[in-house]
């Protein structure tokens, strides 16, 4: 697993070699991080669905870990997006960027996920409610995106070009490398965190059994 993490990091450093303007480079991190966040939320919702279908307890922890990781990546998306906005347009925040606004809404939604989880007592009820909420989240992603697109006409005139830079062959290759690297990083973190949480749960069970 350490090897996978190492390979992922090595891949992420590849774009330093491509000749770009320095501010463009954040793009290689920002978009893969965003895509990874989506993937994590999707995975969390899928695990939630599995939990509701089969009732197996282990899916709850998997779903929770995925959402947790997704939130971390989502926060990173906001941070890197903010840096990109600063370097490209001179402001720390831009309501004109659909991606950023979508992530802000998702950030609010998934932070509420944790508040919900902490407020519920441990057990099957909490697992089920978290799963339903994760499903709502994944449905919210396209609906929110559509809403934000519609909102642009009423709230904020679209001043800046939202499309990513046109990518030449070498840039595209670097981008794909980064994407794969980011996914691998996420997968590694996921496996790590899941193992840690399972060990925690097992430890707690053993302690309770002893007392």
């Amino acid at each position, binding site marked *: 697993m350490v090897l996978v993490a190492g390979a992922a990091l090595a891949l992420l450093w590849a774009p330093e070699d491509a000749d770009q303007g320095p501010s463009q480079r954040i793009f290689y991190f920002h978009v893969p991080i965003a895509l990874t966040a989506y993937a994590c939320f999707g995975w969390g919702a899928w695990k939630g669905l599995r939990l509701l279908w089969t009732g197996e307890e282990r899916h709850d922890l998997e779903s929770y870990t995925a959402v947790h990781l997704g939130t971390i990546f989502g926060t990173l998306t906001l941070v890197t997006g903010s840096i990109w906005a600063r370097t490209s347009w001179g402001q720390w925040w831009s309501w004109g960027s659909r991606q950023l606004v979508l992530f802000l809404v998702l950030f609010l939604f998934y932070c*509420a996920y944790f508040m919900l989880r902490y*407020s519920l007592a441990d057990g*099957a009820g909490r697992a*089920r409610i978290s799963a339903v909420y994760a499903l709502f989240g994944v449905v*919210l992603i396209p*609906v929110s995106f*559509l809403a934000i697109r519609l909102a642009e006409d009423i709230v904020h005139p679209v001043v800046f070009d939202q499309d990513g830079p046109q990518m030449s062959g070498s840039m595209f290759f670097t981008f794909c490398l980064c994407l794969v690297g980011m996914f691998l990083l996420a997968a590694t973190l996921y496996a790590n965190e899941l193992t840690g949480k399972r060990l925690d749960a097992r430890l707690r069970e053993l302690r309770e059994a002893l007392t």
Partner: protein
Amino acid sequence: MSYLADVAALARKDLLLELRAKETLPSMVLFGVAMLVVFRFALPADAPERASGGLLWVAILFVALLGLTRAFVAEREQHVLDALVLAPSDRSAIWLGKAAATLAFLAAAEAVAVPAYVLFFGGVGWATLVAVALADIGLCAVGALLAAMAVSGRARELLLPLLFLPLAIPVLIGGVGSTVTDDPARYLAFLALYDGVFAILAWASFEYVVTE
């Protein structure tokens, strides 16, 4: 169809309770009007008319939130929810009954708030009224499920605004768009889409929210 009979019975129970207690509905009405007055003072003198249109929707959102906060409290305190879950009917009927009752309260509150808005700020078009109807359906459908979730936890109904607002943002966008733009059809279609998607999702998943 006994499913609809169940839903009707549950909604009727909530409406009767409210008719006797008269707690939630007057609060919602007064809150709506109070919000409009606050907005009057919050808007600067040269604010465009579009700004006040947006504020109508904020008022609707928070009046809905107020109504939803009270939605499952009585069930929780009197442990009625356990009894309802044990009843031999589809659990989603609980959700539908609650959503229908909340919708009735919200519509009643808006029957006062919207004319008050017209009085304070100016006219509303047909698009706004259609949007209000569609938005109400969406807000109550999603809100009823979220209220059931919130009430199960320690933080109880205090959690509801956190859960509700991110999901309410698309409704707000749809509503404001219908009110202030020249082409409301897109926004109305979007509201209908939101209603359809989330109502189906809520209907299908409510059972998992209330069973242990």
